């Protein structure tokens, strides 16, 4: 019923010079449902966290918490650890993942290998939290698959003593597990987009495969590679559940500190601190994302 009324109303009111403008504006209505969703579930929460960092428990403005968070040596160390872990796992993940994407892309475009690896990566890129921790405990933990084997064969080797798993190094190894498939997923399209004509042109001019990669393939892929690596950085930086289930003592990274600030039962819980730490994380990722967008801009040039 409403629909017919609407049609008539718009039709009569905007006859003449109107329709063009109406049409131009009406296009914006197409994004309205999405806009509302994003407003309620993304923009508003972002806003409330960011402003919350500058509020004390009574809701009035203060800079104290933010200042305290950004000057406290403990928090700074945690930020440093977070950034380092993210950088390391993004780099290792990006290198292994992109090489893997190349290895798969050179296979048959509709082959079983490609199909299987794509599906497997889809699953494993989102494999995190307590499940991933279980997997690595079962591998490298006490009585783990690899640990038991090494402890019996090479009792003095590094991996035979699993303390490393529950800290910085462990997080790097575990995070890389989901970074590789994520890189594979986001980088494969870039490799697919390498135009066969370039390769033909290269070989027509007498270039070898190696030369093709060195002079054309890699330079073309670099922006996309770096862009994807930054995505990986953000992915690792914001990961929480895996670290929470793996590391039980000493909040060595920022997400764990946020969790302490949110749910500590020893009297140090403080919602503003949690939000201020969150603000810090958003700033770091914001910088990364700006870099990412700049990269994308360069990539789009190649894609056209």
């Amino acid at each position, binding site marked *: 019923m409403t629909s017919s009324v609407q049609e008539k109303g718009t039709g009569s009111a905007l006859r003449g010079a109107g329709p063009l403008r109406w049409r131009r504006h009406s*296009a*914006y209505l*197409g*994004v309205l*449902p*999405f806009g509302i*969703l994003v407003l*309620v*579930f*993304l*923009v*508003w*929460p*972002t806003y*409330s*966290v960011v402003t919350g960092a500058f509020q004390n428990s009574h809701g009035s403005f203060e800079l104290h918490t933010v200042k305290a968070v950004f000057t406290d040596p403990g928090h700074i160390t945690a930020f440093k650890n977070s950034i380092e872990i993210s950088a390391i796992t993004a780099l290792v993940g990006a290198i*292994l993942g992109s*090489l*893997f994407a190349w*290895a798969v892309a050179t296979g048959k*475009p*509709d082959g079983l290998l490609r*199909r299987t690896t*794509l*599906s*497997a990566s*889809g699953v*494993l*890129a*989102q*494999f995190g*939290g*307590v*499940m991933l921790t279980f*997997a*690595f*405990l*079962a*591998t490298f933990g006490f009585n783990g*698959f690899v640990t038991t084997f090494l402890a019996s064969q090479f009792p003095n080797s590094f991996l035979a003593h699993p303390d490393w798993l529950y800290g910085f190094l462990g997080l790097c190894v575990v995070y890389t597990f989901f970074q*590789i498939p994520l890189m594979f*997923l986001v980088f494969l*399209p870039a490799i697919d987009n390498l135009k066969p004509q370039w390769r033909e042109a290269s070989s027509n001019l007498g270039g*070898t*495969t190696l030369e093709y990669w060195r002079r054309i393939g890699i330079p073309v892929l670099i922006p996309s590679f770096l862009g994807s690596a930054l995505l990986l950085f953000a992915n690792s930086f*914001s*990961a*929480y*559940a895996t670290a929470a*289930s793996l590391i039980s003592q000493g909040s060595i990274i920022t*997400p764990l500190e*946020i*969790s302490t600030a*949110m749910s500590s039962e020893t009297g140090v819980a403080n919602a503003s601190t949690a939000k201020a730490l*969150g603000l810090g994380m958003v700033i770091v990722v914001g910088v990364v*994302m700006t870099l*990412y*967008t700049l990269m*994308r801009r360069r990539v*789009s040039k190649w894609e056209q």
Partner: protein
Amino acid sequence: MSTKRSPFLTIWRWAIMLIVSVYLLTPLAAMLDFSTKIGRGKRGLYAWKAIFQQPDLISSIGVSLELAILVVLAVLLVVVPTVVWVHLKLPKLRRPLELICLLPLAFPAIVLVVGVSHTYNWISIHLSESPLTLTAIYLVLTLPYSYRSVAAALNSVDVHTLSEAARTLGASTGRVLFGIVMPTIRAGVMSAAVISIALVLGEYTIASLLNFQTMQVEINLVGQQDASIAVAVSLAALIFVFVLLVIIPTSTKRTKVLEPIES
């Protein structure tokens, strides 16, 4: 591409596949090993059978599957049309849309949950207390991935020419959108759906902090009591999603979308 491959590169190719496979498959093998161990040196399927004796776990698996379906539907009905719409009609909004879709990555879920907890309190009181309300926040979480897949697919086809051609031949906007453009970017849409399913079935932080019993939350609980059951469920979930993803056609093969118009 396979005509003139140097042996050096072939060796490299296999070496890389081997390294990555070992990295990714060893922990999975360890899970299988762990979940079939009973006591010292003995093996059995106790943990796998016990999955079915956990009613809370079973019902939470149901919740997570329903959520996955709802989120995929929402991706198909809200996100994909919006991205296409912006691509075709509102090129000015492309950059802002991309930024917005990347925003969830900038937000650690543990922070995002602080921001949405009031909204969810309101939803619980006034709309529904069902865990299926998580669909909205999960849809937001999938944005970075679903946007990327769809946008990449759109960029690789000349959608403009395609839709103009269809319009010239008298197709309506709806028909252009759902009959022409969507099938053309099917591969991208499928990969968006696939990542969304994996994401929903793997999400723990938000569900846990909003006090909803999803599969991951239950796995976590079960894991405190009996790690081998939790590992068995985790592995089962991985295999399930993997099989699902293999069945869903994600191939880059394009359907012949222009056929109906030609005839």
